[in-house]
């Protein structure tokens, strides 16, 4: 049986969601292809007159586009941006991102719950970006979210899985895909997230700020695949103390004396 990621009505073979920010447009295609990516996020902004250098011309055909609501400071603004994104004609998926705090860029869970309800009712496939908090995540699930996207660390920080224990609680308690979004800085951290049962990993800055950007996209792809395989394989137990030989304990040098 294929191991597919299911979000709303869509199915994916890749579990690597890539943000399209901070890359030069010319590099976008190579990064997406190296990462084996099937979902890419985009932002909505006032359009540049002239229509030159449109990001849509640089994203490989067949990718699922996931617009975000970045720039929104409350539920109302997020809903407005999501509706505009849908009007742009790239499907009904949306990543809700509501940020009031301009220093740490942490998401506002209360407003995110409100926006999730409105947009889910309007038929969007809603993926809320949030502070990893079980009860807020439950409210988002009740409001109709198709997946939950808790942060690992502040956006763009490359600090890794600082919220690991809280994300694990959400994985254990919720039936929706849990996708770590934000903060992941290294393939090893992406692998760790997958190993503990995350459904997917989203990254952008980790790749965009690497020395060799396309190669880092590939490193993330492999790490996410490895972590997923490890999760499915069910990692072995940890001894509380002592050791256990991996080779048979029956000696033979003594016997030949």
């Amino acid at each position: 049986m294929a191991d597919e990621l299911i979000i709303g009505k869509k199915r994916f073979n890749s579990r690597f969601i890539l943000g399209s920010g901070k890359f030069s447009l010319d590099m976008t295609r190579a990064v997406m292809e190296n990462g084996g990516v099937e979902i890419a996020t985009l932002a909505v902004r006032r359009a540049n007159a002239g229509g030159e250098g449109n990001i849509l011309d640089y994203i490989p055909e067949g990718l699922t586009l996931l617009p975000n609501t970045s720039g929104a400071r409350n539920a109302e603004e997020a809903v407005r941006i999501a509706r505009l994104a849908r009007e742009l004609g790239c499907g009904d998926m949306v990543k809700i991102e509501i940020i009031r705090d301009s220093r740490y860029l942490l998401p506002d869970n209360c407003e995110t719950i409100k926006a999730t309800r409105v947009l889910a009712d309007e038929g969007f496939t809603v993926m809320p970006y949030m502070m990893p908090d079980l009860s807020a995540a439950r409210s988002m699930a009740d409001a109709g979210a198709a997946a939950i996207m808790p942060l690992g660390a502040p956006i763009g920080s490359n600090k890794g899985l600082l919220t690991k224990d809280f994300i694990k609680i959400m994985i254990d308690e919720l039936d929706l895909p849990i996708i770590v979004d934000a903060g992941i800085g290294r393939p090893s951290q992406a692998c760790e997230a997958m190993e503990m049962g995350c459904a997917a990993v989203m990254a952008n800055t980790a790749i965009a700020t690497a020395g060799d950007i396309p190669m880092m996209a590939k490193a993330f792809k492999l790490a996410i695949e490895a972590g997923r395989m490890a999760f499915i394989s069910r990692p072995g137990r940890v001894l509380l103390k002592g050791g256990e030989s991996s080779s048979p304990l029956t000696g033979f040098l003594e016997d030949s004396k």
Partner: protein
Amino acid sequence: MKVNGKILESYMPMTVEGLVLGAGYMLDRVAVELNGRIVPRSEYPRILLKDDDSVEIVGFVGGG
């Protein structure tokens, strides 16, 4: 009228389509909000803009 936050003087009657194409946007790459309400693409040729209108023309950019 105001377009993306900037004042635009227009002396001739102009439709949403005229505004969008005249400014060099590609029709299938933008979404238009007129006074806070989304205008479906099919209505661009029919809607005449007024002096006190506020128009937002948005599109996708890279983002995480």
